[in-house]
């Protein structure tokens, strides 16, 4: 089945910005074909990945250890956790047992000490998953796997499970930004 993805949100935002210009143009071109299932998953994966990478590049390094409450994860631990868990999809999809760092919950677990380390780590987690989604394609994502849950899961669902997981942590980190008097990258005026 063909469908657009959540990436459409970004497209919509860009579209609104350009609307006045577009209205003056002569006949609109028909929309191109909708992305395939795997392309839709890939767009969603990369979209939330892009937002997480942007935060890794942007949040003040001297606030990496900030946490809103004693039981909460620090900023950097939250980002490491959201990113590392992507390997639960990536490795399972590749037919491997998820690597131990899939469960990383502490920057020390993955050797992240500086912003550069964090950006590199988050970027690799996103890119490795994206490469796996591409490799699987539409047919491959419909394969079912034993991921340790009570029933088999399709890789498509596992990928979306991790995308959802990342979205939730992104939402937490947005509040971390706001509490520190900062505007999240996505909420700033677009240049």
């Amino acid at each position: 089945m063909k469908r657009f993805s959540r990436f459409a949100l970004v497209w919509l935002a860009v579209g609104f910005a350009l609307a006045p210009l577009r209205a003056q143009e002569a006949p609109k071109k028909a929309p191109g074909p909708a992305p395939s299932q795997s392309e839709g998953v890939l767009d969603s994966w990369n979209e939330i990945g892009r937002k997480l990478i942007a935060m890794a590049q942007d949040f003040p390094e001297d606030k990496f250890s900030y946490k809103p409450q004693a039981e909460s994860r620090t900023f950097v631990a939250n980002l490491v956790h959201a990113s590392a868990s992507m390997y639960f999809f990536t490795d399972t999809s590749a037919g491997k047992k998820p690597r131990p760092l899939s469960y990383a919950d502490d920057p020390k677990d993955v050797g992240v000490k500086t912003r550069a380390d964090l950006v590199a780590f988050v970027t690799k987690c996103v890119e490795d998953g994206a490469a796996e989604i591409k490799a699987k394609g539409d047919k491959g994502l419909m394969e079912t796997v034993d991921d340790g849950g009570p029933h088999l899961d399709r890789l498509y669902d596992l990928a979306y499970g991790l995308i959802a997981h990342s979205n939730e942590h992104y939402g937490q980190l947005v509040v971390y930004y706001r509490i520190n008097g900062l505007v999240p990258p996505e909420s700033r005026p677009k240049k």
Partner: protein
Amino acid sequence: MNKKLSFVFAALMLVPVALLGQEKAPAQSTPPANPITASEKGFYGFVSGAVVAAAQKMPEENYSFKPTPEVRSFGQLVGHVADASYSFCSQAIGEANPVKDIEKTKTSKADLMAALKDGVAYCNKAFDGMTDAKGSEMVKLFNFNIAKLTLFSINTAHTDEHYGNMVTYLRLKGIVPPTSESQPAPAPK
């Protein structure tokens, strides 16, 4: 299973078992009818359930709480999620939006809880009439062509992000978020 990924597993639990085969069987099983719709509904069921539970768990006196002046209060988050549910799901099924401005007009916990539950019920009803084939039909969203199922997908992602907001609001008030309730205390290092 590591407790830290319980969110993912809990969400996957709601992907209909019957559609995937109740016994663990070799990979490459035949995809069920309407697999994409079933997946979307399962994930939405989990995420919307988490938001409703968070809204229920936050005491009414904290519905006006906001961590900084620039952001929505907890109650406004609840209203915003309800508004968005009606907006996205009504467009997905080609109906006029039946309920608007919840965020602007309701402030009490009882009213916001009711509105949120109604919004979720509206979306679930919308899912019930959906198939993968119908979901691939394009609809207009403003000036853009979007697949119907993608509207559900956007709604789920939107709900999920705001659930993440709520998690931190709850933590700031010393309340354990619903999706962390069943987790054991971390082992001492």
